[in-house]
């Protein structure tokens, strides 16, 4: 007689754990699925079940001058914000972690404060400040505003890396003959880079999806995509909105994947 294989007893805890995970996953993904259904459904309203599959809303989105202008503007702004917030956030994080500054805790809280403030207030305050200063509402003003709310993300991820950073590694480089500048570029920068870029990805997405801060700071014919979509929705609630959302999601995903490939955000986990 052959040995009877041990049957695993039913594990209720494990089943519940799996169910919980599936539920969370569904919670995150179902809205995206609904958007996709809406984007592909030819009727100008959400109907379930969908009556067919059509790309007409994507065509409308890509053929709409306003949409395209807004899409490119949003991408351009997000790219600028990515670069600026990496430089500013990275430098701030280094100064805060290394600078031996007086009132460091206060400064950290100060730089983080744009996250605590309702973004709509940040936007409104900047709008008034710009008008009072007489600089109007130029694109760079919008970029600065987005950067303001994006920097905390870079700051936080970079500070996290710097917190776990073994400074002996830098000392080892110095004692081996590397000047402070070379220590920074040969050792410090490569080691904090994953943290900086992880924050940069957040910064890009925060800018690309930014609505409340932009609301007051966009000018006629210079609206970002979220603002255009919001206003479009007030008059024409059709699938073009869903198509635009799908395009936004895919673009954001593409940026994350590309940065992941280029920089290796995974390394961040190991560090």
């Amino acid at each position, binding site marked *: 007689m052959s040995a009877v294989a041990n049957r695993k007893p039913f594990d209720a805890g494990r089943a519940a754990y799996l169910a919980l995970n599936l539920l969370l996953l569904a919670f995150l993904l179902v809205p995206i699925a609904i958007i996709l259904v809406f984007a592909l459904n030819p009727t100008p309203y959400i109907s379930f079940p969908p009556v067919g599959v059509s790309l007409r809303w994507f065509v409308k989105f890509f053929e709409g001058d306003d949409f395209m202008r807004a899409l490119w503007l949003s991408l351009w702004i997000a790219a600028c914000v990515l670069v600026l917030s990496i430089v500013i956030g990275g430098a701030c994080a280094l100064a805060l972690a290394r600078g031996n500054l007086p009132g460091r805790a206060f400064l950290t809280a100060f730089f983080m404060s744009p996250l605590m403030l309702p973004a709509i207030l940040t936007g409104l305050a900047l709008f008034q400040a710009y008008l009072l200063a007489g600089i109007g509402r130029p694109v760079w003003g919008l970029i600065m505003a987005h950067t303001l709310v994006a920097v905390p993300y870079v700051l936080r991820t970079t500070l996290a890396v710097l917190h776990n950073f*073994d400074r*002996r*590694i830098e*000392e*080892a*480089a*110095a*004692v*081996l*003959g*590397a*000047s*402070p500048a*070379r220590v920074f570029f*040969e*050792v410090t920068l*490569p*080691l904090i880079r994953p943290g900086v870029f992880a924050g940069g990805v957040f910064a890009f997405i925060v800018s690309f999806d930014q609505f409340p801060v932009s609301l007051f700071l966009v000018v006629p014919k210079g609206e970002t995509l979220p603002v255009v979509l919001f206003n479009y929705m007030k008059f024409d609630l059709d699938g073009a909105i869903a198509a635009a959302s799908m395009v936004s999601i895919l673009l954001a995903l593409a940026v994350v994947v590309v940065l992941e490939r280029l920089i290796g955000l995974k390394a961040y986990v*190991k*560090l």
Partner: protein
Amino acid sequence: MTSASIKLASVTKTFDGKVVAVDDVTLEIGAGEFFSLLGPSGCGKTTSLRMIAGFEHPDAGRIHVGGRDITDLPVHHRDMGMVFQSYALFPHRTVAENVAFGLRMRAVSKPEIERRVAAALAQVALTGFEGRRPSQLSGGQQQRVALARAIVIEPRVLLCDEPLGALDRKLRQQMQFELKELQRRLGVTLVFVTHDQEEALAMSDRIAVMSGGRVEQVGTPTEIYERPRTRFVADFIGEINLLDEGARPRALRPEKIRLVPPAGARLAGTVETANFLGGATLYRVNAGGRTYLAREAHSGERSPRAAGDAVGLAWNDADVVSLES
């Protein structure tokens, strides 16, 4: 490889304006010497080493290397090798790149770098590991890479900050031999910071025992062990019997006490405990209301004494050390 002498002249370092880490320390380390800074944590040994390396600047006093005052010379111009307890390897570079780093900073030609990296890795028996990342190596291998990285630049001085502290006991002993052997072969001046007195005794040419930012005693391992000058040194290194306290305490090492028949002994007492140590037995003997430690090496067969046995204690007066209070 040339080596250089090191001189610390009345060096003082205070942190945050109040904590005195190093207090008026003067030391002379000879070229090619294996010199240990030994003491408990907070004694100032690491701060002293970091001042030699240039990571800290002394508040007062000067530091000379090879006869030259380097007190104000930046770290990266000091031409020293350093090994850290945490290894401090560059995690984003391969073993070969780690070792080559110092040579690259010195703008050494590529073929020369390759040759010297290979030679350095051979010195630490890591040939074949060139392409690995530090994270793929064991602790002992990582410390060897750190060593190769430090010696490849042919420094006149090699600074080691508890380099073996993170290794387990067996590996540590093996690395002690290897490091000592490497230092002898290269003839480099080596300053070794440790809190492990056995390690210091085993490896050093000379030892400076430090406490509270000051140097308690400098001497060869034998001197430090046999003739501790202060009560702190006597207590810190090994076990000791304090024969009497007061202005001039006297001390006696346990192995200097002989167990003899009670009759005619200096003191008569009773064995409290007998701890078998392998090569010797450590006895705790109560005599005259005090407890004495006596270590008896086994020559041939095990000593038959056990707890409760009556024994006598004997020693030579020459073995008693007078300490500064």
